[in-house]
């Protein structure tokens, strides 16, 4: 019987102890408030810690701990934490549908009454506006897309930055004749060719946000001439990609460009800090539009920060978000943000890295838009991605690809 008692006591102890310890950890010291911040940017721990340290000068009693998860696991992990009531006080919010889902589920707080939100343009706020018109996060950073090019290789082949898509193909031709792979992009990882190249170039063919909505509403067809032309561009460019580009991954592409084995790489601005120690001179130019069209830029709203509706320290969390919405806060943030993530606030902000500035300067005088599928047609991501890949492998024609997309669109219930 004694043994039995012992077992009962032991199991009781096991059940109780985590609660005892957890309660201890949550205690705050005097006025000191500890907040946690969830994120998918596992690469940015140092940068964010610097930013959060800088915030301590504004609010000395608030300690924010940055706790990122692997990018691919973020959505799943965050949901798990929120459901079990262990969610962070502050957290990164995805734009559009995935973010709206967590707001509707009651996890993200309503941020509409944060004053500084007026510092953002409507188009920059749209990605984090729920269907009920409330803001569920404050915009934090956007990414851009463009062509990284090796200036030395361009000089060696005696070519200049192309102004039109036709020129671009000519440049590719000359580079190839000069014995260098013109374009580093490959197909193996599937997301990069689509998100950076096809969606990066698409506004050149169809126009900016005002045109995009016409495709979303069905007013314009996804198999019209403009789309066929965009797919044709992808077909034409395939022969300038590395030999065996079907199995070239995103990392391979970066390595090819960094080792000067490829002269250009169509990629997102988030890589702009990657090539700080390469041995050649490099720069950025916009993916050129075909003759007769205006070059437009895919400037994609990427990160926003929101707070937990169940947080015990809402006041402090809100104060932090408000600070990020001030010009002062945004300037501090952009100082510490990794290169290539651009502040979204409607105020001129100086960025240190030369090429990052070049990237941001691409926007000047051009139309910009989010990546085509993100706002409404996210379910077309996969069909479109597969269509681009099949076109580049010459398994289907550009017209077939466009028809496939229109068919996939017809099946959606919007």
């Amino acid at each position, binding site marked *: 019987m004694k043994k039995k008692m012992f077992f009962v006591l032991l199991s009781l102890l096991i059940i109780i102890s985590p609660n005892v310890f957890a309660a201890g950890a949550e205690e705050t010291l005097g006025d000191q408030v500890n907040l946690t911040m969830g994120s998918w940017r596992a690469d940015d721990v140092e940068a964010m810690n610097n930013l959060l340290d800088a915030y301590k000068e504004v609010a000395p009693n608030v300690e924010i701990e940055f706790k990122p998860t692997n990018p*691919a696991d973020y959505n799943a992990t965050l949901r798990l934490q929120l*459901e079990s009531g262990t969610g962070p006080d502050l957290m990164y919010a995805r734009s559009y549908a995935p973010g709206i889902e967590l707001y509707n589920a009651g996890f993200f707080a309503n941020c509409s009454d944060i004053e500084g939100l007026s510092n953002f343009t409507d188009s920059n706020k749209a990605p984090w506006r729920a269907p009920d018109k409330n803001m569920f996060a404050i915009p934090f950073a956007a990414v851009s897309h463009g062509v990284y090019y090796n200036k030395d290789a361009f000089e060696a082949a005696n070519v200049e930055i192309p102004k039109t898509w036709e020129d671009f193909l000519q440049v590719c031709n000359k580079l190839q004749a000069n014995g260098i792979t013109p374009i580093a992009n490959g197909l193996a990882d*599937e*997301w990069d060719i689509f998100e950076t190249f096809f969606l990066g170039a698409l506004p050149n063919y169809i126009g900016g946000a005002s045109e995009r909505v016409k495709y979303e509403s069905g007013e314009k067809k996804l198999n019209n001439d403009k789309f066929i032309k965009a797919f044709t561009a992808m077909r034409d460019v395939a022969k300038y990609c*590395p*030999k065996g580009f079907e*199995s070239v991954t995103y990392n391979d592409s970066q390595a090819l460009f960094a080792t000067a084995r490829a002269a250009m790489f169509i990629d997102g601005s988030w890589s702009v800090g990657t090539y700080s120690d390469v041995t050649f001179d490099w720069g950025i130019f916009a993916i050129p539009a075909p003759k007769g069209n205006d070059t437009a830029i895919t400037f994609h709203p990427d990160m926003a920060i929101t707070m937990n509706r169940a947080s015990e320290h809402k006041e402090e969390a809100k104060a932090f978000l408000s600070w990020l919405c001030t010009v002062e806060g945004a300037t501090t943030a952009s100082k510490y943000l990794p290169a290539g993530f651009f502040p979204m606030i409607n105020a001129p902000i100086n960025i240190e890295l030369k090429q990052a500035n070049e990237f941001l300067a691409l926007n000047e005088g051009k139309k910009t838009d989010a990546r085509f599928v993100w706002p409404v047609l996210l379910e077309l*991501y996969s069909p479109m991605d597969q269509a681009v890949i099949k076109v580049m492998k010459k398994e289907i024609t550009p017209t077939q690809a466009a028809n496939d997309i229109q068919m996939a669109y017809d099946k959606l219930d919007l």
Partner: protein
Amino acid sequence: MENKKINKHLSVEPKSWYWMLYILPALFVYIIFMAYPLIDSLRLSLYTGSNSLNREFIGLNNFKKLFTDDFFSLRYKSAFGHTVIFFLINMIFQNCLGILFAVIITTRTMKLKTFYQTIIFIPTTFAVLVTGYLWKLLLNPVWAGETLSNIGLGFLAQPWLGSKSTALVTVSLISCWQWMGIPTMMFVAALKNIPHDCLEVASIEGANAWQTFIKIKVPLIKPVIGMITILTFVNNFNAFDIIFATETVNGAPNYATDLLGTFFYRVGIAGEHPIAIADPGLGAAVATITFIVLLLGVIPILKFTNGDN
């Protein structure tokens, strides 16, 4: 009298419930970590919703969706087909080569046995991510092409993992390469256990090597063959990591290497990129069917190879 007393003493039943104490810890662990999750995931397959707040009971609709919904049935059927092919290639190459190597290694006249044994076993000790990464580089014309053409094998510089027609076979063979060591070791152990006199009698009777192998060695190692078949079956129907390491969780290119494991991960855990809203209920339905297939598959294999017992 004395005897009887002892007997009586021995036959005294211990307090009837005492034995339960001894299995309690094991039972506890088993229930918490095996039985409960299994039953709960069977239950989950009857629900839908991306989180516990919007979860609702929908009966067998998840299963219906898997087989009739345009999108899901297409992906599910292709994933199922690929898994069967993946398993068959593994079964044939991994185990036939395993048995061949084991026979060679256990041949009495063989030299450097330990050396070969080690070489065959080394890939098994690698992390799958490492194996996947290495083969990705080796099979990539961009990195290996130059070396290959320098040694006159330029025609081998193909995007093996990137083209639809070769990707699945290539990944299967990578998996075979990695795990070959396990069946080889098990067969070596089984073959070493065959009583020497059996083989001696056979050779006195004039049986050649092939006859000895078919008539004596194979029947004696049949239980091991069954064991290995089951292991291959279970491991490959649950395969995920090798595809994750070489072809992304989408089963690139164009879903050509999408297995039940990757499909389950996308549907039930991570959600399809970039929406990334998972439906754990639908995922559980995929897992439930896989569980049933494995259960039904293992029984005949056991029957066939352990028939004599």
